[in-house]
């Protein structure tokens, strides 16, 4: 009850345009304040577009910053503070989406893309290897004739080509 009263008091005293972390929100214990900042950076300001409560000017962000600090002072660990907020606002409040069934596609996406990319590269090299072996075969007499006609000096092109391939 007392904390809620203090909370209301802070709200009343606040000028209406709050900008990110305010000095009067900050905790006296620098260690705990640092923890609060780190936690704040991963919490979404629910009424903003893609801003953390640490960056946001919104009223709600201010309320959440104060709430985070109250929980820390009450002895919560960092994880407990996040749990408390998730219980209240859902996963939406976390800027790092938790790994669960609804976000499997999100977290597995990049490794999956990387696998496809690796596969594509592998196909490129394999196809090249096939081609390298197939290009080892001799030129037909007609091709040889045309090549000689084109080139004043006879060069063993097919052999260098074959050797250079992997």
């Amino acid at each position, binding site marked *: 009850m007392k904390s809620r009263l203090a909370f209301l008091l802070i709200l009343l005293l606040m000028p209406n345009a709050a900008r990110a972390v305010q000095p009067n929100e900050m905790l006296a214990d620098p260690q705990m304040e640092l923890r609060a900042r780190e936690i704040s950076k991963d919490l979404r300001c629910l009424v903003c577009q*893609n801003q953390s409560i640490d960056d946001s000017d919104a009223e709600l962000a201010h309320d959440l910053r104060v709430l985070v600090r109250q929980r820390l002072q009450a002895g919560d660990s960092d994880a407990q503070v996040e749990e408390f907020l998730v219980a209240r606002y859902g996963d939406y409040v976390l*800027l*790092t989406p938790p790994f669960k069934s609804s976000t499997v596609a*999100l977290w597995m*996406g*990049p490794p999956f893309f*990387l696998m496809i990319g690796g596969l594509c590269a592998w196909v490129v090299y394999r196809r*090249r290897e096939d081609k390298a072996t197939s290009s080892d075969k001799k030129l037909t007499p007609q091709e040889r004739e045309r090549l000689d006609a084109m080139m004043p000096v006879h060069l063993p092109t097919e052999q260098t080509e074959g050797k*250079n391939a*992997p």
Partner: protein
Amino acid sequence: MIPEIGHYALILALFVALTQATFPMIRAARGNRAWMDMAGTASVAQFVLVTTAFGALMWCYVTSDFSVLNVAQNSHTNKPLIYKIAGVWSNHERSMLLWIFILGLYGLAMSLFGGNLPPSLRARALSVQAMISVGFILFILLTSNPFLRLDPVPTNGAGLNPLLQDPGLAFHPPFLYLGYVGFSMAFSFAIAALIEGRVDAAWARWVRPWTLVAWGFLTFGIAMGSWWAYYTLGWGGWWYWDPVENASFMPWLAGTALLHSSLVVERRDTLKAWTILLTIVAFSFSLLGTFLVRSGVLTSVHSFASDPSRGIFILGLLVAAIGGSMVLFAIRAPSLKGGGLFAVASRESSLLLNNVLMSVAAGSVLLGTLYPLFADVLKLGKVSVGPPFFNSVFVPLMVPVVIVMAIGPLLSWKRGDLKGALRRLKPAAIAAAVTAIITWSMSGGIGAGAALGLATWLFVGTMGELAHRLFPMRMTAVDFLRRVITIPRSFYGMTLAHLGVALVIIGITGSTAWKTEKVQVMHFGDTVKVASYDLTLKGVEEGVKGPNYVAARATFLVTKNGTFVAELHPERRMYDMPPRPTTNAAIHTNVIGDIYAVIGDPDESGGYVTRLYYNPLVPWIFIGAGIIALGGLVSLTDRRYRIGVPLRKVAMQPPQS
């Protein structure tokens, strides 16, 4: 009268574009030269018409003609002239007009500089370009016409969001669009080549300059946007992985991949299908980027649905452009046979690795940006995908890119000598290790040490290669000068761009690892120590009048060990129209770092909330990005793009039927 002229010119442009999109394409198939040349004339006409429309709207803004709805909604008589002009592209309808204006500009450039292109390829590419115009002009005329009149005429306009009234942001959209739309050139060439069924080294050489232009502008545009965020949003951040930023970053990633793979097509005549696919992807990302930002779909799915005509048109346009080109690609790609073979250790392989990782990065950014939308539509619940996700995906992908960036240029085409390259990179490796260890032991940050080590590796490696090319053993001064001139400009361009990347990494590391922040209430005369600087609040002058705002202007004295460094004047502004507050940070830079001061609200004790930062190395992010863009520019002046395609290659092509 002027708006009607603009409106009329736009309608005429639509019909010119329709003609240009159809006839040259049909007639090119039959080899009718006159009809093919018509595409060039049409693109000139279209440029004139679109410029007329664009000029008409600009006129309405400059003269504050509030009978035009669009002007009334976004302008105000008190606004400085530059922002009246910038108003022409600062919201949806008008930015679309800027889009087609730039498209017209590129079309004109293609018909002016495309003289050395085969007539059928040129006609088809211009035709594809016109199809894009048709789509966009129809979109403007049907769903977002900027020339609509308003009755009764209001006495004054609603004004422009003050955050956007800033020189950095005034020029940010045009550069971004020069980049986005620039990729349409490569796209048009790719579609034309797919229709013709021929992609060769000559094709790559025609496309590459346009890709370089687009990529250079985009790089510059993104850097400008980031810089704007850094100095206006007021807490020293410069990149937020915000969907709007991602929208411009995805085409950049795809464009970077394209830039490197087109090199392989040009030099080695291989990876053709892949390069064509990348041009399609780069332009698709540009379209997506334009619409993601402008349609409001990112704010919420519901705002998109509330104006279905616009949304459905956008979806239709995206499906037609991306789907159509992908179908064409699927049909024609198997016939694009790659020629050159290459070993695992080769220049080609290093470029291929860049391509794969850049594409994976672009795909991941797309996934992260759109995932909240998917989750919402599929009823998976509301999900936030924030910076931690993007950082954890993006950083590991870029580490191998940077490592190979130093090795790749040392490898020769076809089959490189990896051992030899690594031997030549020994100084770079030693420098990197020393930097990493010193950084780690001095600051205790293992991540910062690794990042700076990586940047050193790239910087020293790239400089080493430049030195290797410039100073071979035993050489006279004349030899040296000759070398300086004969080394292709594209090599200088690459060197600059890669050095730029190293600088950007240094800047990012500095700003994330060693940023100092002090937030407190200060009274006049109070001094706060930030890093090694002392900042004293001298006073705050309330009621300073600007052209369309009133500001509270603070004066900070910055000293270091008692000697004067600078005076900073951060402001807190209240704009008249619309009445919104903004904070204008004051920044003093000495190139190594920025002292960054923000003045907040007064508190009841008569003091002021102040936020003071020391942002070490941050200037290098922007300097580095500028150098990357400059690298693109230098590469563009390479001799081979000026003299065109060598005759030998033309002679080897089959005769035109």
